[in-house]
């Protein structure tokens, strides 16, 4: 197991490096002045220009520039946000928690629900529950996430007044302890439900397909003929083998989920990282924009690494591949 984790970590290094290089190319391939992209100043003073040219070695050969750039990134220096007048990394640090909270809850909900429904549907194809869940999943598969967020808001927050429409906390009275937790959960409900509904539809489709394939195999017949209970057969024998694509997809789709979370954060004014990249794009805060983009690529890599390791932990065959 240790070996496997180590191997995966080493294999990740060139990929991360590729992302850094890609960032570098983006800054230099974009039309206009790289000084503008690195500082956000449309009319930099000669001193600032000189300082930036010195810092990033803009007058030196390309190879040296790349090394300098990689050096800054390794030290966690992503530049300074124009809009917030603070280091990019600090600004992102304040916003990453709410996004993790939102995504963590939605992913957990959707995997639990999607897998359960998928198993139920695959056990009895063409049954009522299968056709119901299958047709609902077509909806979930096609609906634009920002529109779903708006619809849920119109129905449950605006008309039924069951949930708040914006933010993460009630601003009026600062709460502490359990009251604060409940308050955040109350605000979290609709945004996380939006993401969870969409993800559930996709997890369901995948689980159903994967389970149908596994359930047709001989070892399931063996398990059944040994007289194992239906629950043991389904969950211990079949699902364990059918989980592979579900785990892999969670990693591969992490970037898409971040994008979905961005939309939801904007509709519900959730103070997360997705909202931040939107604010950066609207304000043309290039250092912040590139910073959020870079960190989210890293997050996607980490998510893939984690799902691979979870998978290897779960399935010994993977470790030996």
């Amino acid at each position, binding site marked *: 197991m240790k070996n496997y984790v180590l191997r995966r970590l080493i294999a990740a290094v060139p*990929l991360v490096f*590729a*992302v850094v290089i*890609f960032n570098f190319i*983006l800054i230099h391939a*974009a*039309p206009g002045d790289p000084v503008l*992209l690195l500082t956000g100043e449309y009319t930099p003073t000669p001193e600032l220009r000189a300082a930036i040219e010195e810092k990033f070695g803009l007058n030196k050969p390309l190879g040296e520039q790349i090394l300098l750039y990689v050096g800054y990134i390794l030290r966690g220096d992503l530049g300074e946000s124009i809009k917030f007048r603070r280091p990019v990394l600090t600004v992102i640090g304040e916003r990453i928690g709410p996004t993790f909270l939102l995504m963590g809850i939605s992913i957990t909900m959707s995997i639990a629900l999607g897998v359960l429904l998928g198993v139920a549907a695959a056990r009895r194809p063409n049954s009522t529950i299968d056709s119901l869940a299958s047709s609902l999943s*077509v*909806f979930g*598969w*096609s*609906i*634009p*996430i*920002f*529109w779903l967020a*708006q*619809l849920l*808001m*119109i129905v449950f927050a*605006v008309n039924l007044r069951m949930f708040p*429409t914006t933010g993460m906390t009630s601003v009026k009275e600062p709460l502490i302890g359990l009251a604060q937790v409940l308050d955040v959960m109350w605000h979290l409900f609709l945004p996380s439900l939006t993401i969870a509904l969409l993800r559930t539809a996709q997890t369901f489709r995948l689980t159903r397909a994967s389970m149908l394939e596994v359930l047709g195999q001989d070892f399931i017949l063996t398990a059944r003929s040994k007289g194992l209970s239906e629950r043991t057969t389904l969950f211990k024998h079949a699902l364990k083998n059918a989980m592979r694509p579900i785990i892999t997809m969670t990693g*591969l789709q*992490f*970037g*898409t989920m*971040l*994008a979905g979370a*961005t*939309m939801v954060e*904007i*509709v519900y004014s959730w103070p997360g990282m997705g909202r931040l*990249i*939107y604010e950066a*794009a*609207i304000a*043309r805060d*290039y250092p912040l*924009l*590139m910073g*959020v*983009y870079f960190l*989210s*690529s890293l*997050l*996607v*890599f980490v998510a*893939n690494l984690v799902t691979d390791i979870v998978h290897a932990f779960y399935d010994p065959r993977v470790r030996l591949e």
Partner: protein
Amino acid sequence: MGMNEFRGFWRRYHRSRTAVMGLVLVAFFSVLAVIGPYVAPTSPYQLGTEPLAVPSSSHPMGTDQLGREIYSQVLYGARTSLGIGFLAAITSTVIGVLVGAVSGYVGGRVDNVLMRVTEVFMMIPQFFLLLVLITLFGSSMFNLIIVIGLLSWPGTARLVRAEFLTLKESEFVEACRAIGASRSHIIFSEILPNASPPIIVSGSLHVGSAIIMEAGLSFLGMGAPDIISWGTVLNNAQRFIMSHWHVSFFPGLFIFLTCMGLNMMGDGLNDALNPRLKSQ
């Protein structure tokens, strides 16, 4: 595809009710995209006297804050949204086919390099990169099509590569090589037609995801500034969501129904073009 093959395909396709429904939806919205601007009652930019009117017989989908007809905006938007969707899907399919075909047919080191690049592209947070590229290079309809196309090809490339890996070992390809056919002839005239069913399926699914991507960008206010698409109408609607549901309801519904139609059609095509899979 000959007449008989087409009959067989159609027989398998129309067996599925959802597939036919998908085709009807896609056909409906495609026709709308073509004739929309001609049947719209007013110009989508024409200011009216009743701002934020609720849907009624005189305003089928209501009006926005400047009294402009949402109905006209949605009809005009159909052309933009579907146009961007189709063109971006064609772009990504062409890139995917080229990369996948070369990778699968040539193999070896070329394959290795191309597949590593594909993997990196698969893992990049697509939508964020889209946002970055549009911010850096500016937003126009052309840029949207190119950038969405440039970011959506990896899935197609992997699919085409897999098809090529199988097909290049088959006997008819061996025969072509034996009579001295050129490499490009074998790739494009011999293998590609045989690999087309999954390409058509993934292409039709890509149209839907490209429409959603454009709508998402426009919803964020990053769409092309001089055009009306379903996403730009939704972007405007976000400000009135608390008081006027109709401004965001109808454009969203149109995106949703179009994508659902495309997805159902894609599923149906998949079943009808791969009779082997269906019988399993």
